[in-house]
């Protein structure tokens, strides 16, 4: 079934699955870390197979650290960091990276913002000099703001407005979080994005972009000594920001006591599905056991062909075309565990939901198949071997872990914690988390066919070419 992974059925929902993939790091002896005098943490991951280095700077600041009313400003600022500094003309950083044969980009989540370049190992110093420059010295004009605001609105059009699955997920997340900023999309609400200005971006920048709020991750054909020398030269002189907030205190979730249900209808939906997400604990420093059990629970329920939901609903009952389960264990604050079912032809969403709930109940009664648990653990062990083939994803694991509240020790202990998970751990975690009072149940579907506008759409095939 690999061709028909939900990437094609449910492109946006799949994004969540990637985050649920079991973490694994091998070759811990190849990871070194230290801290510069100004508080900037440094992680070095060695891989000497090719003369390549990945250079990343991660800030412990993301969309959930924004001030209410300026949603999207963390991501907007990420775009603006390519505009220029006292020493770099707009676009010069990317141009310089390209002229050195490298690639660069940046990413923003609720919990972090990161910048990276992938380049020949002997260009590392050049990358650091430019990245250090834009940590404190960006220079923006009103024109930059106006033009780039159009770009992020087009990015929202592309990622969200053109995709009913994304619009649906946005509404579901907003319903999931009653108080926490995880309910606000990273890219921002459109009406607030349209008002973002220079001051909003600079406020965020001055607060969070500082060495004492940053983590440098360098992975590839380098030694820790080389990195230390270069990092002290380029990042060392930047003063720490004494005004940096001490704690990342975001508004916490109150006790959730009522299920939320939503129906999202859009004529562009060809394949309806039902999704359910539950508020769930995340990996915490020194306390990752429940999260480890939930990772394995997601694997047991939704892990491909042999996942429990697929076996029951697709193979046995033939009620689903596709099922999956996800868990985003890495998160600074309370996270989500979820399942979804794409019903087979002729099966209603109500029936699919009922079958899904019956199957979850049955799982709790039957318990864990010991052989399946062993297979999952074997794959996690092997994953540590395969992970070493991609040094960039190892770098991301450390960068995201450290900006989401974990320590190096937590990240390195994780594979062993996963191996220690027992059936009892899994069932305890499942009973705790699968609580409808803390859940959002959503139906995504097209409007009923008896509406005239929907009929009109149905009679003209969407792919018909107008001549």
């Amino acid at each position, binding site marked *: *079934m*690999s*061709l*028909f992974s939900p990437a*094609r*059925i449910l492109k946006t929902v799949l994004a969540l699955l990637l985050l649920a993939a079991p973490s694994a790091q091998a070759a811990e002896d190849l990871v070194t870390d230290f801290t510069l005098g100004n508080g900037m943490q440094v992680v070095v991951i060695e891989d000497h*197979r*090719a*003369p*390549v280095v990945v250079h990343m700077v991660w800030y412990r600041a993301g969309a959930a650290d924004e001030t209410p009313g300026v949603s999207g400003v963390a991501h907007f600022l990420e775009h603006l960091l390519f505009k220029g500094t006292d020493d770099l003309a*707009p*676009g010069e950083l*990317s*141009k310089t990276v*390209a*002229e*050195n*044969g*490298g*690639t660069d980009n940046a990413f923003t989540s609720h919990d972090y913002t990161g910048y990276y370049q992938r*380049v020949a190992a002997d260009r590392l110093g050049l990358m650091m000099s430019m990245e250090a420059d834009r940590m404190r010295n960006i220079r923006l004009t009103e024109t930059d703001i*106006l*033009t780039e605001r*159009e*770009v*992020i*609105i*087009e*990015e929202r*059009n*592309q990622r969200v*407005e*053109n995709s009913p699955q994304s619009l649906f997920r946005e509404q579901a997340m907003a319903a999931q979080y009653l108080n926490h900023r995880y309910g606000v999309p990273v890219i921002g609400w459109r009406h607030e994005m349209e008002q973002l200005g220079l001051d909003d971006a600079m406020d965020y920048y001055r607060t969070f972009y500082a060495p004492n709020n940053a983590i440098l991750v360098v992975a*590839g054909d380098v030694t820790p000594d080389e990195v230390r020398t270069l990092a002290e030269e380029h990042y060392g002189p930047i003063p720490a920001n004494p005004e940096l907030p001490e704690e990342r205190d975001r508004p916490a979730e109150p006790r959730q006591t009522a299920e939320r249900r939503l129906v999202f209808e859009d004529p*562009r*939906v*060809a*394949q309806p599905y039902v999704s359910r997400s539950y508020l769930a604990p995340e990996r915490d420093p020194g306390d990752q056991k429940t999260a480890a059990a939930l990772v394995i629970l997601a694997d047991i329920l939704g892990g*491909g*062909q*042999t996942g429990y939901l697929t*076996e029951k609903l*697709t*193979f046995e009952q033939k009620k689903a*075309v596709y099922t999956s389960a996800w868990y985003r264990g890495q998160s600074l604050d309370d996270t989500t565990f979820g399942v979804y079912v794409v019903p087979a*032809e002729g099966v209603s969403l109500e029936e699919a939901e009922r079958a899904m709930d019956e199957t979850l109940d049955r799982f709790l009664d039957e318990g864990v198949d010991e*052989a399946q648990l062993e297979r999952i653990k074997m*794959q996690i062990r*092997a994953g540590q*071997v395969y992970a*070493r*083939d991609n*040094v960039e994803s190892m770098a991301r694991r450390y960068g995201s872990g450290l900006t989401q509240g974990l320590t190096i020790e937590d990240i390195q202990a994780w594979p062993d914690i996963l191996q220690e998970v027992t059936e009892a751990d899994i069932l305890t975690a499942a009973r705790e988390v699968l609580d409808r009072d803390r859940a959002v149940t959503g139906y995504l579907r097209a409007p009923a066919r008896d509406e005239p506008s929907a009929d009109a759409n149905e009679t003209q*095939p*969407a*792919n*018909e*070419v*107008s*001549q």
Partner: protein
Amino acid sequence: MIRILLATLVSLALTLPARAGVDIQEVKTPGGLTAWLVEEHSIPFTALEIWFRGGTSLDRPGKRGAVNLMTATLEEGAGEMDALAFTRAKEELAASFSYDAGDDTVSVSAKFLTENRDEAVALLRETLVSPRFDQEAIDRVRSQVLSIIRSDAKDPNDIAGRAFESRAFGDHPYGTDSNGTVDSVSSLTRGDILQAHADAMARDRIYIGAVGDITPEELATLLDDLLGDLPETGAPLPRDIEPALTGGTTVVPFDTPQSVALFGHAGVDRESDDFFAAYLLNTILGGGGFESRLMTEVREKRGLTYGVYSFLVDKDHADLWMGQVQSANNRVADAIEVIRAQWAEISENGVTAEELEAAKKYLTGAYPLRFDGNGRIANIITGMQIEGMPLDYPATRNDRVEAVTLDQVNDVARRYLDPDALRFVVVGQPEGLSSTD
């Protein structure tokens, strides 16, 4: 089928050779197979790529979607095992197999640990040589394919890809969706799937790349075991085709806030003497970096899009020079005007020496960086074989890039880039745009 087009682009990028620090050995097996191998013993696993030339273009008349459905059903039961038993066996070994059907190739990608390599390869062999194609499995996967076909019919990117390819390639296999239609897929029988397997997966069209913890001798034995029992010959390959594109605009009405536009005209064959000049030219025009002409003019200066790209599409039987942009319905006409103007500007006035120098630095510097991982390298060296490149080609690739002159690039710009020949296919509710024919 924008995904297929973009996938072609990726394989193009990966297969450009260069002076990279990899030591490729050619391995000839006693059974008559040829493979390329890079030994890398530092991590105890092997990445193996097995590609069959032909792909979904081998679908027989009236059987559109057969190769695709066949490929997707390979791992749904093999030998003595049904789908679940097979998957459990694979999970116990922690091996990873994936099967993909493209316009020109069926590809099999495998990763397996050294500690259980023999068992993993035996399991893989069953899926290639003895797939069961149980009726129940075919029906299950068919329902997934039908779900995808219905979803794609409401996805502006897919609608644009299909409309563009239909216009370019008509009744050639490239002109229709390789997933097939609801009707064609619904009527495929188990016999059609067996036929597709015999047509597409034969020894006369096989290309193999391996990277990892394995010696040439071990690889030779492994390959003869794995592939020795496949049929000797498969179905004939399709004909070459000149894209039938004419200049103009095609609007496909679809109710969505942001229009998706694909554009293109005839391209450049990889075998052509113009290819490297065209590749450099495309890098400057819209090759993916933030500093390309199209990104600078459409995004950086005007904020009309999140991304705009141009790319050379090098299929086995056709060549296109294409691009893509997405922009809100009330702005896409402006974006298209800017793109057309840039196309004209470069065609008439060429690029500057500085731009060419920057593109050369990028391409020659980036090339060795691609060779950084067993899986990635296995892909590159398999692609090199299917493109007919010699074993030592990597050592000369950067020299070929360096040898291209400004005159050659600007000559290629004059001869190939033609704003009047560009066909724009726009899916959405674009304001100020209508179909020109």
